Structure formats: C-alpha cells, structure tokens
C-alpha cells in the first residue's frame, strides 16, 4: 500500500488536479490534503522501495527506487510544498490573482516541482536521474518566473546556467557509461571508484559543476538570489526551502556514493597538503562567507534572505565534504533545519510586503506592535538562521563545527564561524529595520497578516523550535540517509549527540535557558517599581520631542563602521566573471556567425593574416 508507485501516482494526480482546479481558492485545501497524503505515504514506506514501472532504452533499464537518502530530501520537499500551498489559499492568493497573475499556473508549477523532485530523488539509474534533473530545472524555472516581469527576467538568467549545467551532467553520464559500462547507480557505486584518477577528476568536474549550478555554489551562484527573491511569495518560500538542495543531493550522491570521498581525496594538487576533497570543502567555505557578506549589504529583505540561502548551503556541503559521521550528519540536518526557518522568514517578509507593499529595509520600521505574530516568526527564524540556541539551526551548525574541530581544520572552522557572525549582523539589521525602531506614519494603521499567512510561518518556526529542543526527531531520518549513502551513522540521542569528545544535550540546554528566562522575568516583573508603558510614537532625541513626520529610524548603511573597514573588499569579481564569460560566448557566436555567413570577409582575412604571421614567427 505504502509504495513508491502510489506516492508518484498521488503526486501526479496532485499535479493534474492543480492544472484543472488550481485557479480556485479552495484548491489550497484539496492540494494541501494531497501533500499530506504524500507525506504519510512517504513516511510509512518500507525502504528501499522499487517502483513497479520503468522502461528500456538503448539496452538500459530505467527505473525508480526510493532509499533513505532520497526520502530525507523528499520529506522536506513535501513539507515545504504544504507550507507554500497554505500560503496561497487565503488573502495573499486573492491579491496575487487581482494583480493579474494566475493562481492555476502557480499551483501547477508548485505541484510539478514536487513531482519532478520526487522523480529525481527516487532515481535508480542515471537516465532516470537526468529525466528528474531536467524536469526539476524546468519546473523550477516555471516557479521562478511566476509573479511579473521582474521575476521572469530574473528567471531567464537562470536558463543559461541550467542548460550549461545539464550539458555537463549529460556529458558526465555518457562518460560514466563508457568507462563503467552501466548506468545503474548501485552498479556504478561499485565500479566508478576503480577508475583511474584522471577519469575520476573528469567525472568530478562534469557532474560537480552541473550540480553546483543548481546549488548555487561559488562561482555559479549569481543567478540564484534574484531568481528566488523576485518570484511570487509562496513560490519563493518553496524555492528557498528546498529547490537548490537538489544540487546538494546530486553532490552528496556523487562525492560520497559514486566516486567516494577517499578517491576524491586521491586527486591531489599539492601532495599531502591540498587535494580535491579540500577543494570542495574550501568552495563550500567560500560559499558560506562571500554570499553571507553580500547579504549584509542588501537593502531589500527578499534579496537579503535569498543571499543567506546561498550562504547556508555552504554549511551543508562543508559538512558532507568532511565525510565523518558528525560532519555529514550536520550537513544533512542543516538541509532540514534551513528549510524550516528559511521558509518561515520568507513568509514573514512577504506578510510585511502584503500589508505595507514594500520589502525595502529603508522604508519600514516599528511594525512589531502592528504585526506581532509575523515579528515572532521572524525572530525565531533569524535565531535559527544565525544558528543560536534554542532553534534547530544551532544543532546542525554545531555538528559541522565539531567535525571541523575534530578533524583539525582551523581555517575552515574560522570561515564557518565568520559566516555565522556575518549572519547575526545581517539578520539583526533585517529585524531591526523591519519591525523595530520608528513606526512610519503611513504604517500606523497596518494590521497583522491574515491567518492563512501567519499559520504556515508559525508552524514552520514551531517545527524549528521542536527539532531544536529534540534534534533526535530529525536525526532519525538523517541517520537513515547516512546509512543509505554508505556512511557511518552518527550515534544520537533525543537531545542531540553522544560522543566521547564532548556531548550536546539540547533538552538540558534549552531547559536551562528557559528556566533562566523565567528567573529573569521574576526578577524583572517581581521586583522594583512598576514600569509605565510609553506610546510607541512618544519619543525624543537631543532634548526635542519628535513627531511621526520626522524620520529618525536608523537604517541606511547600518554597519557604517564595519563597511568603512571591509567595504573596499566588495569588488563584484563574480559579476565581472559572469559578464566576461557572457561576452566571450557572445563574441565567439558572432565570429562563428560571421564565418558561416561570410558577412565579414575582412575578419576572415584578418584571422588568416594573423595566423600566417604567427606561423611565420613560430617558424
């Protein structure tokens, strides 16, 4: 009953229903129920489960099979879809339709994304994988392109990246088949590690760059922030939570299962000092730091979060690249944790946009008294994003830090912590400029977002808190994923980790933290004189009373002193790289066109002359 067949059939039915009924407001309920059904089917499935269907092509059997690694990602995907569809059902969806957008297309794109990801995550061989990969890319594009011209333009930037990535993956598949004689992932896992070093390196570069594009790993990250930020609210939440993690899924499969980390580590650049595994870890570390500090400079809340999404994926890859039980558990757990708080943060920002019409961090402020629930969601969300207790983000980052400490990587550890510190600065700016400080006169009558928006975000941060107190709930699925990848499983307890080199028991840590808050509250409210509440707009500065029409909210260039020091380090090198590659491709294309159509005989002559000259000199 609880089979992969039924899961995929239900997912297909959801997609079809979205296409037929998606325009209706009520579909959010139906679709939500269908996603819940898929979650139940998936959670109750006995693994591994092989689909009964499949087909033969070029002598290869194409089939699907769900294992623990796929299920871990699939559960997050379905959870994110459920949260997103709840968001579309109410006022936000109505406004979206009023603005001339199609709710049907949005629902269809969402359901198609889920179906495509399930197909990808359950692929048994590389052809099924490539089908899922392409479907995921195009469904992702469809979801990114919803929500107006800016969204479409940002999504179009993704297309050349996606196509380049797909070509690289396809080339990798062809080579893998040529060298190993099979496309079945299980068979390849046995054969690929036996290949020569140069073959492993080729596969690593081809597959790796294809997956890195989807994940937004440096230097392929530029497309992601605008594409995610400009999409429609519900879509942004889903995309931010899980979409780019498909790249991480691919990388995990490649690095750990197919090529194995020990073979990757055999590819050394400087023997004994720097090998390909270090290279992956360092790419991950730079992916943590650079996008995080780019986020710090953003003035649009959506872009700020999208840049952090790229940065956080660095922790996931860094954990996986360590290859030890603690590090890989941390990296995988961070996928789940990040999905919970990042989607909540996105929803909270879109709730503010829904009520005020802007996400510009210089045009907001003081909304905490008007939108307390959205504030609460954002507060818990940023605690998770910054990786502080008691939220779940702390646990996964702690695991990654621990792994870096045990394995003795001081610089990677420093990079990981630097990312966290930068995140703390950036998210305080986010919550301060949006919810704290001076309330603008035009926002005086703003109301809390409707329940259809607040419930999903509060449910998400509630889940983030629950798995922060009891990480064992999520670590169960992480252990399953580790086992499916063939990794040693990290011993865990309900409260965290039991290791001979330092425990973490979150039940105690959080318990004591809240007991401390309790004592703090008794000390504050129980002792001393009673405090008098002053109206939010009753303020003064420099001895003058201020009225609401005077703007004194400190928001622009928030970290002026810091930027004075590190500002010159922002050089847009990657934008320069991207545009130089684009111009080179453009130049090459026009040269080819000119050559083919003979429109510029002078150019042909010039090239011939240059070659001739070069030949003469060379002689």
């Amino acid at each position, binding site marked *: 009953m609880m089979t992969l067949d039924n899961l995929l059939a239900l997912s297909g039915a959801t997609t079809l229903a979205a296409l037929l009924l998606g325009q209706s407001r009520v579909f959010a309920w139906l679709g939500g129920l269908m996603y819940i059904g898929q979650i139940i089917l998936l959670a109750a499935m006995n693994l591994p489960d092989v689909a009964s269907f499949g087909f033969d092509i070029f002598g290869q059997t194409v089939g699907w099979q769900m294992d623990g690694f796929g299920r871990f990602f699939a559960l997050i995907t379905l959870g994110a879809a459920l949260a997103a569809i709840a968001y579309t059902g109410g006022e936000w969806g109505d406004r979206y339709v009023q603005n001339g957008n199609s709710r049907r297309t949005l629902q269809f794109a969402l359901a198609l994304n889920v179906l495509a990801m399930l197909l990808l995550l359950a692929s048994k061989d590389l052809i099924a994988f490539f089908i899922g990969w392409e479907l995921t890319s195009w469904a992702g594009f469809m979801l990114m392109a919803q929500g107006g011209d800016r969204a479409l333009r940002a999504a179009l930037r993704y297309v050349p990246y996606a196509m380049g990535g797909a070509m690289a993956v396809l080339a990798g598949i062809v080579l893998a088949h040529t060298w190993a004689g099979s496309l079945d992932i299980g068979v390849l896992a046995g054969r690929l590690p036996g290949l020569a070093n140069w073959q492993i390196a080729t596969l690593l570069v081809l597959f790796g760059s294809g997956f890195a594009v989807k994940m937004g790993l440096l230097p392929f990250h530029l497309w992601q922030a605008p594409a995610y930020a400009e999409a429609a609210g519900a879509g942004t939440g889903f995309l931010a939570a899980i979409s780019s993690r498909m790249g991480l899924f691919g990388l995990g499969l490649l690095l750990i299962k197919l090529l194995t980390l020990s073979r990757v580590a055999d590819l050394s650049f400087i023997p004994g000092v720097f090998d390909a595994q270090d290279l992956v870890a360092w790419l991950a570390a730079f992916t943590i730091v650079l996008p995080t500090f780019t986020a710090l400079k953003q003035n649009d809340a959506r872009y700020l979060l999208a840049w952090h999404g790229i940065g956080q994926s660095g922790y996931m890859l860094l954990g996986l690249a360590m290859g030890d039980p603690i590090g890989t558990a941390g990296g995988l757990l961070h996928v789940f944790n990040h999905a919970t708080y990042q989607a909540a943060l996105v929803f909270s920002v879109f709730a503010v946009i829904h009520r005020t019409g802007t996400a510009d961090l210089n045009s907001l402020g003081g909304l*905490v008294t008007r939108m307390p629930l959205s504030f609460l969601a954002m507060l818990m969300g940023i605690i998770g994003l910054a990786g502080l207790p008691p939220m779940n983000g702390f646990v996964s980052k702690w695991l990654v830090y621990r792994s870096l400490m045990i394995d003795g990587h001081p610089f990677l550890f420093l990079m990981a912590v630097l990312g966290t*510190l930068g995140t703390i600065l950036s998210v305080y700016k986010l919550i301060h400029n949006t919810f704290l400080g001076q309330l603008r006169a035009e926002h005086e009558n703003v109301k809390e977002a409707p329940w259809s928006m607040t419930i999903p975000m509060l449910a998400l941060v509630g889940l983030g808190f629950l798995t922060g107190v009891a990480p064992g709930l999520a670590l169960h699925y992480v252990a399953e994923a580790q086992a499916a990848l063939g990794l040693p499983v990290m011993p865990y307890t309900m409260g965290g980790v039991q290791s001979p*080199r330092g425990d973490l028991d979150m039940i105690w*840590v959080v318990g004591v933290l809240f007991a401390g808050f*309790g004592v703090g509250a008794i000390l504050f409210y129980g002792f001393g*004189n009673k405090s008098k509440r002053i109206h939010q707009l009753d303020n003064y500065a420099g001895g003058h009373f201020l009225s609401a029409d005077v703007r004194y909210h400190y928001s622009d260039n928030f970290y002026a002193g*810091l930027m004075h020091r590190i500002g010159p380090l922002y050089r847009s090198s990657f934008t320069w790289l991207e545009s130089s590659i684009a111009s080179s491709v453009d130049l090459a294309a026009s040269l080819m066109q000119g050559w083919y159509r003979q429109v510029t005989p002078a150019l042909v002559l010039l090239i011939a002359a240059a070659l001739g000259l070069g030949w003469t000199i060379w002689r």
Partner: protein
Amino acid sequence: MMEILLEITVMPLIAFVIGLFMVLMMRRIAAKIQRRVGPPLLQPLYDIIKLYGKQTQNSHGLLHDIGIVMAVGGYIAAETMVPVPGMNGIADKSGLLALAYVTMIPSLGLALGVGQCANPNGSIGIARALTAMLAYDVPFVLIIFGVAYAYGSNNLVDMIAAQQAGGIATWGAVKMPLLAIAGLFSLYAMLGKQPFEIYVAPAEIATGPMVEMGGKYLGGLFVMQCFQLFTATAIYVSIFLGGGENWLTFIVKLFAVVAIPMSLAFVFPRYRTEDVLAVVWRWPVLISLAGIWLVMH
C-alpha cells in the same frame, strides 16, 4: 538529578556575587588611577537596589521588557555551563562551543529591547556592538578551536581535569602561551572597556544601548554586566589557568585575570569602530594562528 538541580540554582547566584565584586574592583582601580577614593564595598549592590526602586520606569513596549528579561535570563542560563570548584552544572552536556553561543542570547535580547526603543543612538550603539562582536569573536573562536584541539575535547570539565592533573606545568597558559596571550587580548575587547567601548561612547552616541534605559532596565543591564565579567573571566581561567582547585585559588585567579584589562582600560581613550576591527583582526588573530600552529605540530 537533585544534585544537578541544586547546582544550577546555586551557580548563577555565586556568579552574580563574584560579578558584583568584579564591578567594585573595576571602579576601585579606576579610582586609584584617577586619584580618587572610590566607592565603598557594597556600592554595586546599592546601585542595583536604587535603580530597581526608582520611581520613573519607562517602558517602550513589551519587547523592551523582554529584552531585559533575555539579557539577565540568558546569562543565568549560561552560568550553569561554567564549571566552578565542586560544581559542574550542565557543563558536560553543552561544552565550550554551546556556551559561547548561549552567551550571544543575552546580547540578542538586549539588541531587541534597544531596537524597540526607537532611539537612533541606541540603534547605532547596537550596530557598533555587533561590529565589535564580529571583531573579537574571530580570535575568540580560533582560541576555542586551538584549546579544543589541544585537549581533545570541547568540554570544559575535561579541560579543567586535564590541567589539574599535573599542576601548573599542565596549565593551558604554560602549554599554549600564545593562545593564552591572544585570549587575554580578545577577553579585553570582549569586556568592552576603553579603548574598545565604541558602543557606549557617551560623548558621541549618548551611551548607545543604554540611552533609553532607566530604572530597573538599567539595573538589569548592571546585573548583566556582573554576569558578563564573571563568565568571560571564568572561561579564561577554565581553559588556561587550570580552573579552580578550590574556591580560594579560583577566586584569586578570576580577580587576577579581570584586573589586567581593567588596569589598562582607564588609561586609554576610545578607538573608532573601524580601528577596533583593524587592531583585533590583526594582533590577537595572528598570535592565535601562531598558537594553533604550535598546538597542531
């Protein structure tokens, strides 16, 4: 179980009392340097009682109150993770890394409370305080890394046991002198006294985070400062000076450590924000990297 509950109740109290005397010592040192008499023994306690008892207690909203609750409550929780002689609390269930992150919770609470006050000077103060945190936490985490690697554990209880096994010769400060020096430097920056008091800067941003704080709000911050002084120095003593064999040596070590930055502080003017970054990212970072290199080779 009962023992742990008793310990986690007593440990914050001890920390508070020691913190009060640290504040007193800081003021006495300042008075000596400035050739004043200085405050009497119980002045810090009187100050807190006075602030709590003040008639004017202005709240700028619920979050303003919660900020103070978090600032004090977060440190009360953190004290249960700092081992003192005879009591480990939950130090072996959390470790140094978790402790470092738990101590960020009070700062976050303070930042939220200040933000709610909507005073631009307060917000500038928080922006500077977070920048200072970005500065001193870079050497601090390198030191955490170095000592955790050297002791083979992230657990303060293990670290203290390892140091007490062989007397002064096995102290962290003897085995890892460079890390200990860098640690003292970043401890100094962490305490936020001159020349690192960029976020208070009374003449510039009117005491920054404290600008809207009066009465028990300021009293809460006073309590927070006591805890902060104790926590930072107790961590230092635990990782470099062998922790406390008994209460006497523990307290002597604590006050000796806190006296060093306090004696230096009052002869300095104030850095600019960008200069704090420059100095803290240069010297303690370089020294701690050299220290890590020594530890790992």
